[in-house]
């Protein structure tokens, strides 16, 4: 069975309905906050890294409410005229579709102006933010308050805090798994109901944000990577800045020694000696931060194995580069470093280095800042690898085992070579899984390169499914394909999501097709 897929992914909004809705939105929000037609302000609402012009999916309008009151009115108008909306926090989720929507002709609901940091609680280490607050904003506010708290920003810190948590992103501090930091949501359902989850409603003010759940079902997960509601506010746990953060890297020179490295790290992760949040980065994942294919005269083919070996020598990088950080009390950190060094004795050629020796090697400074909770934009430097670069990102989850990692790497590297692209990826360490984060780099505006990247993406999806790996997060373009892989028991998972969608957003207004979940009114059908 396959999910429904539009042959031409265009929202079907009747012109009179759209015109009437636009008039009402202008009256409700102010005309300058409703963009439509040829308005220049509408230009940013597309996928800047679209793998081809056909994937641009231009919208017909964008709404920019300033607050919850305006948002409720905007949604009420959408409901009255039957016009679907695509909510955006800041639209900087660039490898996954950015400020684009699943369909062309959509009305974008841009929440960037809802950018208040509602609360920072220094004693109990949490914050409450609106959708438009970026990690850079939060960091600036924490600094202004001389706070001892830090967030766990993802590699590119200019995006929305709320957006990153809702997409179940990944940080690089000891609190790396973003979903674990979530402590209560404020939700505006498609049917207009406003709810606060957990203890975050005003009637539980004393314990709000202190526990993720309350009495009865715990539903927050339903509203991540989903289209059941607009999330208008989110609580997140922060952490106190540790007494010591000691970043390190471990290099191995031979690709196949990824197996031994993962085997050595697993017991330490399970025992809590090292924290999730570190990443085992491929050679080009680090090299691409500081050099380019053009400089290496790589031509039109993937960099050869011989050229990769030379590059590793020149840049003082390994075939794999595990970046991590010890954090906590100084005495504990010193002990943990000794345990890691002993564990690495089983890994051929593994070299453990700290900031004093490796601080100037590619990627180290960036990872060290992230491990300290510093929001940054340096990660975008990998785009230069291919000139004016773009990337499609694919995140898969596999067991925290050396054989699984090696198999996934070898398969994906071979697929990359077959499609003429370089393998640029990393394995992020989870508590019990590895997240294989594959970044398909190609030149923006090059239709042939975009087509190659798109074909490779589909091949990688199929390969991951064959190996029994799970896709965690995908680009807008491929959400139906990914959803189709969750097919067990006559697609019971997808049917349940669709039932929830129809119950919570009966008019099917919010983000139709997000994560492969289409509303009933879109004419859902399977063949």
């Amino acid at each position: 069975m396959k999910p429904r897929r539009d042959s031409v992914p265009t929202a079907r909004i009747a012109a009179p309905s759209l015109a009437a809705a636009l008039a009402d939105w202008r009256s409700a929000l102010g005309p300058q906050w409703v963009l439509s037609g040829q308005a220049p302000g509408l230009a940013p609402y597309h996928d800047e890294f679209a793998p081809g012009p056909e994937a641009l999916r231009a919208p017909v309008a964008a709404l920019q409410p300033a607050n919850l009151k305006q948002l409720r009115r905007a949604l009420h108008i959408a409901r009255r005229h039957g016009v679907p909306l695509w909510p955006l926090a800041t639209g900087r989720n660039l490898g996954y579709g950015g400020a684009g929507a699943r369909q062309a002709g959509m009305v974008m609901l841009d929440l960037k102006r809802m950018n208040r940091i509602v609360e920072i609680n220094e004693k109990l280490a949490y914050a409450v933010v609106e959708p438009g607050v970026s990690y850079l904003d939060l960091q600036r506010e924490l600094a202004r308050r001389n706070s001892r708290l830090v967030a766990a920003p993802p590699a590119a810190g200019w995006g929305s805090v709320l957006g990153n948590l809702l997409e179940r992103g990944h940080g690089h501090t000891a609190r790396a798994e973003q979903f674990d930091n979530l402590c209560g949501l404020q939700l505006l359902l498609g049917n207009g109901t406003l709810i606060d989850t957990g203890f975050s409603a005003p009637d539980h003010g004393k314990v709000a944000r202190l526990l993720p759940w309350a009495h009865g079902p715990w539903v927050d997960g339903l509203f991540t990577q989903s289209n059941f509601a607009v999330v208008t506010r989110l609580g997140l746990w922060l952490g106190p800045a540790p007494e010591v953060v000691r970043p390190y890297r471990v290099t191995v020179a031979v690709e196949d020694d990824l197996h031994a490295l993962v085997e050595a790290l697993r017991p330490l992760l399970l025992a809590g000696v090292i924290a999730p949040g570190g990443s085992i980065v491929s050679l080009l994942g680090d090299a691409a931060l500081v050099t380019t294919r053009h400089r290496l005269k790589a031509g039109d083919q993937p960099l050869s194995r011989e050229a990769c070996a030379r590059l590793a020598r020149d840049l003082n990088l390994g075939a794999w580069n595990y970046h991590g950080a010890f954090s906590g009390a100084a005495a504990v950190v010193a002990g943990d470093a000794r345990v890691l060094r002993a564990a690495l004795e089983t890994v051929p050629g593994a070299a453990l280095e700290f900031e004093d020796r490796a601080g100037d090697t590619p990627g180290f400074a960036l990872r060290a800042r992230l491990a300290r909770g510093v929001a940054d934009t340096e990660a975008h430097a990998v785009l230069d690898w291919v000139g004016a670069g773009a990337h499609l990102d694919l995140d898969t989850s596999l067991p925290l085992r050396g054989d699984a990692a090696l198999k996934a790497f070898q398969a994906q590297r071979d697929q990359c070579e077959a499609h003429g692209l370089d393998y640029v990826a990393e394995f992020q360490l989870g508590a019990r899984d590895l997240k294989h984060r594959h970044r398909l780099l190609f030149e923006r505006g090059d239709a042939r390169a975009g087509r190659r990247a798109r074909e490779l993406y589909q091949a990688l999806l199929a390969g991951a499914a064959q190996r029994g790996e799970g896709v965690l997060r995908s680009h807008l373009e491929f959400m139906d394909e990914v959803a189709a892989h969750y097919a067990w028991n006559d697609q019971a998972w997808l049917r349940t999501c669709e039932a929830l969608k129809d119950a919570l957003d009966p008019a099917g207004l919010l983000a139709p097709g997000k994560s492969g979940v289409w509303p009933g009114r879109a004419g859902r059908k399977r063949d």
Partner: protein
Amino acid sequence: MIDRRSFIIGMLGAAALPLSRARAAPRIGVVVDGVCGDARRYADACGLARAARRDAGALEIELVALDGLPCVGLGRDSQYFVLARLAAEHGYRAVYEGVHLYTDGVLDHRLRAARTALPRMISALREAGPDWPLVLAAAAPRLASTHALASAAHCRVALAAPPDSAGRLVSWCLARR
């Protein structure tokens, strides 16, 4: 070898301008890729010899500090990609963009700016050879007073890439309009 990413950030120095224009020098921010030779020459030509080096995360904060002043720069594409989008949120838009690409002993300059700004720049770039970053620095005040990416022009100059070149660089001017 290009090393880790950093930026040289400061204000266009009057020393970079001819004496006749220095007294009335407009206040213009400069953001330069700190690790590439051509960009460092541009920074020197802009009078940033003693300016601060910052990590990438500081870009937005520096933009806020510019408080509406125009901003010019030379660097790698990813730097401009991020900066232009951050700047757009502070009301800036591009009034000049240039791409400078070394390929097989030729440096290709492709510029977009107001029609009036381009002929003089193209002519100077043709003559400048390896000093092309100085041409861009000298043009900064003029570019900062233009209004749109209305026109395009290009030229090719026989010139091998210097050893520490990024290969492809972009130059820009962002202004509030």
